[in-house]
């Protein structure tokens, strides 16, 4: 019983971070239809910005968190402006190849800048865990969970209840009509990619201090993000959120009661099963494109 409670608590914490990784990608992959291989690198970038700000320049942890997210947004905007803005209307294969190239270049740049040795990022939370009867959880994980939920909620509001959000949805449903209606579609492309990238950097900035930062840290994060997005249905923020929690619970309980060797396979088996019955994912209604 204690073990089950601990597994559920762990899954809840993990689910928050998977959901955060998923919503950033669902904007870019789901709404923009760009297969974004740089998502994991933006995650690593967020973590390394925290390292630079907190450990090398001594900025306050919470200020650094805000700055890291802003820098992630700027890097995302730069990537979109330099690489993707030239590829509007190019087929999905071309865009995919460019993004694979950007992924490799970014990861090697990270290694060049920070070396391959993993780095630790100090956090201001107490080292002793929060103990609740038989179960316990680290304070920094509780903080990550709370911020993740806040960011997910803010993104949901932005997409569904603001003018910018409506312009984003309109642009990627039908860019010509949106342009005719006076939407600045080039700016919307850049803004959407920057927002998705900022969320990836936020996930990295939050999780870097929980784990350690190293150049290839983004690879597994990106794999999880793609799983979450496909599970929840492309372009759906509630879907990505639910997908994140489902993936976390399946992994955690599967590893706890079936076999930890197949922990990472469990999530993908689940995806296959769900796609068999609901080919658009759990929450998306429309037909998938691309």
């Amino acid at each position, binding site marked *: 019983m*204690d*073990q089950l409670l*601990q*597994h559920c608590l*762990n899954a809840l*914490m*993990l689910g928050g971070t998977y959901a955060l990784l998923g919503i950033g990608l669902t904007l870019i992959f789901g709404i923009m239809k760009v297969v974004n291989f740089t998502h994991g690198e933006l995650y690593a970038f967020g973590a390394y910005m925290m390292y630079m700000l907190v450990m090398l320049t001594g900025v306050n942890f919470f200020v650094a968190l805000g700055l890291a997210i802003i820098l992630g947004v700027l890097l995302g905007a730069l990537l979109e402006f330099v690489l993707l803005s030239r590829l509007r209307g190019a087929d999905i294969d071309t865009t995919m190849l460019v993004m694979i190239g950007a992924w490799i270049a970014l990861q*090697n740049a990270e*290694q060049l800048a920070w*070396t*391959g*040795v*993993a*780095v*630790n990022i100090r956090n201001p939370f107490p*080292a002793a*865990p929060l*103990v609740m009867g038989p179960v*316990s*959880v*680290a304070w920094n*994980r509780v903080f990550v969970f709370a911020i993740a939920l806040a960011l997910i909620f803010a993104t949901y509001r932005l997409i569904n209840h603001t003018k910018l959000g409506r312009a984003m949805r309109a642009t990627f449903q039908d860019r010509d009509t949106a342009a005719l209606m006076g939407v600045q579609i080039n700016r919307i492309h850049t803004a959407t990619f920057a927002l998705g990238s900022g969320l990836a950097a936020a996930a990295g900035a939050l999780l870097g201090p929980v*784990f*350690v930062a*190293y*150049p*290839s*840290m983004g*690879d*597994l994060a990106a794999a999880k993000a793609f799983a979450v997005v496909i599970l929840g249905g492309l372009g759906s923020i509630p879907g990505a959120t639910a997908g994140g929690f489902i993936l976390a619970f399946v*992994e*955690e*309980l*599967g*590893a*706890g009661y079936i076999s*930890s*060797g197949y*922990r*990472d396979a469990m999530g993908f088996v689940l995806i296959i099963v769900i796609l068999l019955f609901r080919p658009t994912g759990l929450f998306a209604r429309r037909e998938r494109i691309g």
Partner: protein
Amino acid sequence: MKFHGLWSILAATFFAAPAMAQDTIKIGVTQPLTGAFAASGNYVADGAKIAEAAVNAAGGVLGRKIQLIIEDNKSNPTETVATAEKLIAKDKVPVMIGAWSSTLTLAVMPKLMEYEVPMVVETSSSGKITTSGNPYIFRISPTSEMEAKAFAGMVKKFGIKKADFLATNNDFGLGASQEFSQMLKGQGVQVGTIETMDPKATDFSAQLAKIKASGGDTLFVTTAVEQATLILRQAKEQQVKARIITTGGSVSPDQLIAQAGEAANGSYHLVFFTPWFPEAVKNPDIAKKFVAEWNARKYNAGGLTEGFRGWDAVHTVVEAIKLAGKAEPKAITDALWKVHVKGINGDIAFIKQGPAGKESAQNVPSVYVVRIDNGKVVKN
């Protein structure tokens, strides 16, 4: 003037390059310089470069200087095969050193058979490497079985009654948990749960909750230093009370202290070099010289427990070339069987392992256990 310049470039390209190649003896090195094992691979390469400089400063071998050609295998088995192909076919190296991880070493082994080029294995500990019948393998690092055997004498002292395992899900981790659990069972110790994890995973909450429920007094952890750091931290978060012992010799205690902080206290580590007390090793003069040079080059002190592998591997190769009298694969393979080298880990010499007629070579290295106490590494 213009033509003169052009001619010198041509001359340099066509005549000088082959002349250079004859001057040096090339040694191929394949290490993970990028990817998941980048930290360790770079340390081994750094150690090898210190050895290269030391050998050349002492006049080289057979009157020629040695030249390391270090290729990055990107922590990836396919890339490792590609580096071996490049080193052997293009650079024509007569001998290789590599490839850090057991999985990478196993991947490259068929290439050694194909080209009949020997390789000194400096790190990998999976038993399969020396028992699969590859006569071009010369391993200087201990197998998991040797580590387990070395640890057997300490089981009583530690008072282990029930042990759990957490290992990375590859040749290295699975091999080690098998050897250690067998050894412990032989001593009457109860073996609880054996958990595995993806080599890239960063969250071990599920495994640790299960290990906590199993309730052993000791947890054996087999993985690289990055995951070990996170396991120590997360074990503390989940209040796992078991004593943690890491195996494999690649979990740098200095790096753990720097990155896991308090959570590293009270953990034990199997290492193959103890740079904190170089006077305690078998050949203290060599160890002290190596540590001094490492520090003079301002390399990370946490890398010494990996870096020494590069030094020992290069000296083993150089000794073999000296005995062979020529830099050719066949002669070096034969000579490697006869080497007696004073290394940092101890005296290096090879015994036969694996199926008769096509045995691999295995060194019997020293294994030490150290403990982290209040942020300091102490002798156990």
